């Protein structure tokens, strides 16, 4: 199925001709209409890649999770809906696939409900937030369809120009809310760090790698393609949301000690980066700076694909760790690179890729994003000149923090000494799981070394966004990456070659000049201590502590110290318990009051139905009197 997705995606991107299909008898009153254009194909391709890997992974992973047949039947449905969402070309078709995706993923999130209460509550959070998004999207699309008098995307595209500007903005904002909630954009992200960790890992990979990006797809499809862009402030809004998400996501990822929560927050961060690109493109698009629009969109799209690859890889790796050790808590892991050599190495590749280091794929997309933003700041568009540098600052800060985050994740999770028995006795995963991870790792490397593999496809996808980008925003000439009319040039291929060459050169020099060939294993320097145990290691929490301190205005960590004094004297403490944690401030300050109001409302409403038949009759009586007065 995934292969079909890849095939369809590549086919459309290769030829530029959409795949069209119609099934009018399906889906009552609407019919299913499919039209996979290059933009959708890019996302289908992304989905297909991860679906292949996740399915392969699932073969080996299924004995750990997905025990019941019903759940196993849902997984392919989820994959199918992921592949079909980008292909939908009418409001109804889109929404049915969208909700199918939501439902199947919801059920998959709840898979492990018997084991953990957190999985149960995650399912509810996810269900409600996804439905919030659905309602927003439904209203947005149905509103637009109602305004233009047709529900096919083609009709909406044609009619959108004649819709009054106010309505266009309403549609756009609602779509932004709806798709933003799926993409995990702050402040609608709360479900993401709950749901993604609770799902079985290959499902997490699909959710984090593919499903969230479909939120971006929606924003692109509606904002750019169907509405054809809008006023400048649309771009500002998207850019601001993206920036907030990027920073918020990476800060929380930085302090998270649950490996999968860390990855989930990092997803919010990456979607933020993608939206910075999209927002920048919209901003410039409003000013008719089309060459740069293409560059920024290309960066965003490439980041989408890259993110799918490395985040998929990381989640699969996390699943492998979870399966081997039974814990996701980084503070209890460690030393896994020796127990799980393949998983460890591949997780390392994913971590380096997500930190955007050469020669891996994350670097290419981030470079493109920087180039687009820098060039946008240098363009003669005044509004862009102010915002773009700020966006560069945000992206830059995010990049730095991401480096710290993933050094933490890999360093404390896989290096050093095991901190728990589970970690010490971990066993490597079966071959199918490793092959799946290997596939994605290969993808990360391939796209990092040779982005030319997909440059024409990327080009087609960007031009399908309907932003009037006509010339090629991305070209590869002589191995070097050229972007639109940006003068910055870079060749990932050569960087990779030079790096490998240099490493080999250094190795050769060492081999020729060093007498001692073998290494001697020696005890670590213990600063005079005889004992070196894992208790002395830096844990994930301690690793992140300095940065947490730097950002404590934003993160507002909780710190509780419980001291129990000895009976004899209060100067001797018997136990000291330290509880430190970082809570999601947006959840505490935005969602909790809403939840409280919601519950209070529910309690208050009970008075309406208090059981008194008199009261009930009184309702009807009042209705009758009012009705009669109205009827006059």
């Amino acid at each position, binding site marked *: 199925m995934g292969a079909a997705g890849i095939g369809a995606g590549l086919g459309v991107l290769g030829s530029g001709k959409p795949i069209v299909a119609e099934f009018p008898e399906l889906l009552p009153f609407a019919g299913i209409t499919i039209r996979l254009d290059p933009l959708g194909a890019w996302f289908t391709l992304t989905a297909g890649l991860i679906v292949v890997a996740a399915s392969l992974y699932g073969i080996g992973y299924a004995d750990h999770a997905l025990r019941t047949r019903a759940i196993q039947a849902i997984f392919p449905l989820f994959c199918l809906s992921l592949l079909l969402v980008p292909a939908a070309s009418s409001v109804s078709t889109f929404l049915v696939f969208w909700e199918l995706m939501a439902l199947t993923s919801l059920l998959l999130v709840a898979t492990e409900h018997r084991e953990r209460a957190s999985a149960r509550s995650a399912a509810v959070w996810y269900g409600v937030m996804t439905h919030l998004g659905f309602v927003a999207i439904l209203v947005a699309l149905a509103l637009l369809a109602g305004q233009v008098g047709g529900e096919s995307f083609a009709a909406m595209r044609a009619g959108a120009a004649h819709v009054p500007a106010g309505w266009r903005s309403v549609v756009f904002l609602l779509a932004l809310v709806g798709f933003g909630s799926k993409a995990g954009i702050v402040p609608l992200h709360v479900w993401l760090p709950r749901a993604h960790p609770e799902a079985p890992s290959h499902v997490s990979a699909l959710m984090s790698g593919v499903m969230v990006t479909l939120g971006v797809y929606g924003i692109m499809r509606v904002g750019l393609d169907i509405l054809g862009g809008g006023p400048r402030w649309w771009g500002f809004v998207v850019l601001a949301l993206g920036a907030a998400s990027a920073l918020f996501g990476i800060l929380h990822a930085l302090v998270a000690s649950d490996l999968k929560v860390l990855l989930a927050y990092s997803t919010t961060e990456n979607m933020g980066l993608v939206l910075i690109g999209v927002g920048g493109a919209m901003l410039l698009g409003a000013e008719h700076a089309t060459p740069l629009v293409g560059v920024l969109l290309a960066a965003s799209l490439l980041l989408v694909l890259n993110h799918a690859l490395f985040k998929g890889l990381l989640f699969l790796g996390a699943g492998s760790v979870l399966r081997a050790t039974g814990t996701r808590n980084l503070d209890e892991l460690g030393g896994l690179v020796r127990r799980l050599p393949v998983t460890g190495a591949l997780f390392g590749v994913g971590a380096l890729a997500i930190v955007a280091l050469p020669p891996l794929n994350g670097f290419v997309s981030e470079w493109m994003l920087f180039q687009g933003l820098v060039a946008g700041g240098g363009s003669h568009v005044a509004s862009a000149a102010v915002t773009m540098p700020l966006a560069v600052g945000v992206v830059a800060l995010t990049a730095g923090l991401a480096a710290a985050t993933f050094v933490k994740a890999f360093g404390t999770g896989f290096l050093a000494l095991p901190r728990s028995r589970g970690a010490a006795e971990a066993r490597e995963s079966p071959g199918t799981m490793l092959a799946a991870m290997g596939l994605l790792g290969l993808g990360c490397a391939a796209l990092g070394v040779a982005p030319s593999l997909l440059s024409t496809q990327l080009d087609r996808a960007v031009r399908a966004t309907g932003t009037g980008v006509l010339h090629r925003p991305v070209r590869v000439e002589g191995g070097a990456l050229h972007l639109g009319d940006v003068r910055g040039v870079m060749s990932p291929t050569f960087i990779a070659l030079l790096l490998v060459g240099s490493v080999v050169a250094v190795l050769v020099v060492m081999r020729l000049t060093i007498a001692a060939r073998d290494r001697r294993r020696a005890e670590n320097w213990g600063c005079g201590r005889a004992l070196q145990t894992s208790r002395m290691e830096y844990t994930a929490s301690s690793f992140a502590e300095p940065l947490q301190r730097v950002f404590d205005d934003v993160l507002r960590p909780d710190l509780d110290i419980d001291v129990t004094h000895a009976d004899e004297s209060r100067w001797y403490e018997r136990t000291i318990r330290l509880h430190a944690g970082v809570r999601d401030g947006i959840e505490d300050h935005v969602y909790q009051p809403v939840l409280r109001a919601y519950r209070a409302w529910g309690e208050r409403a009970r008075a309406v139905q*208090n059981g008194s*038949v008199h009261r009930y009759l*009184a309702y009807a009586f009042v209705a009758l009197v009012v009705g009669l007065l109205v009827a006059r």
Partner: protein
Amino acid sequence: MYSQLLGLAGGVALVAAVLALWRRSLLAIVRILAVQGLAIAAVALLLGVHHHEVAELIVAAGVLVLKVGVIPMVLSRVVRDAPNQRDTQPSINTATALVAAAVLTVIAFGATRRLVDLAPSPESELIPVGFAIVLVAFFGLVARRNALTQLVGFLLLENGIALVALVATARVSLVVELGAALDLLLAVLVLQVLTSRMRSKFGALDLDRLTELSD
């Protein structure tokens, strides 16, 4: 003469509805119900005589049997078995209730003026009266706490509707009329069965005890 008599019968019916709001004794209320039934039967009779309609005469006879005979009899038997023959304190005090009845009557007349205007005739003049009975009886339903008075309230309300039905539609098919009457009879019997069950389960007919089901 015809129209005066019609008016008189309608007036009696309306006054009966208002009186039912005022009285507390269950037996008295059942009697008021019978009186109202009589007034309705009189209206049917007058209509039948005036229009020379056999159907109306049959209806009049039916109303007489049902609303003056059977139902009050069944009810008064229930009342006699009741341990406490007086209704408990209504949830709205009587003075307020009577004022409300006046207001409701005004509303009913106001709301149905256009109905009369459609075909002004002695018969259609009674439509507002019927509506007023409906509203006042409905109000009684809301105000009363005893299951039996609620039952009577329902019947009063139904009488109001029957009055409207009589005067508004000259030839509503007899089948419908009979079906409706049969349904109502059944409903009353059902309610009566429920009342006796209620007495055995709850020991009283106080509806305020029926609040186990809420939310």
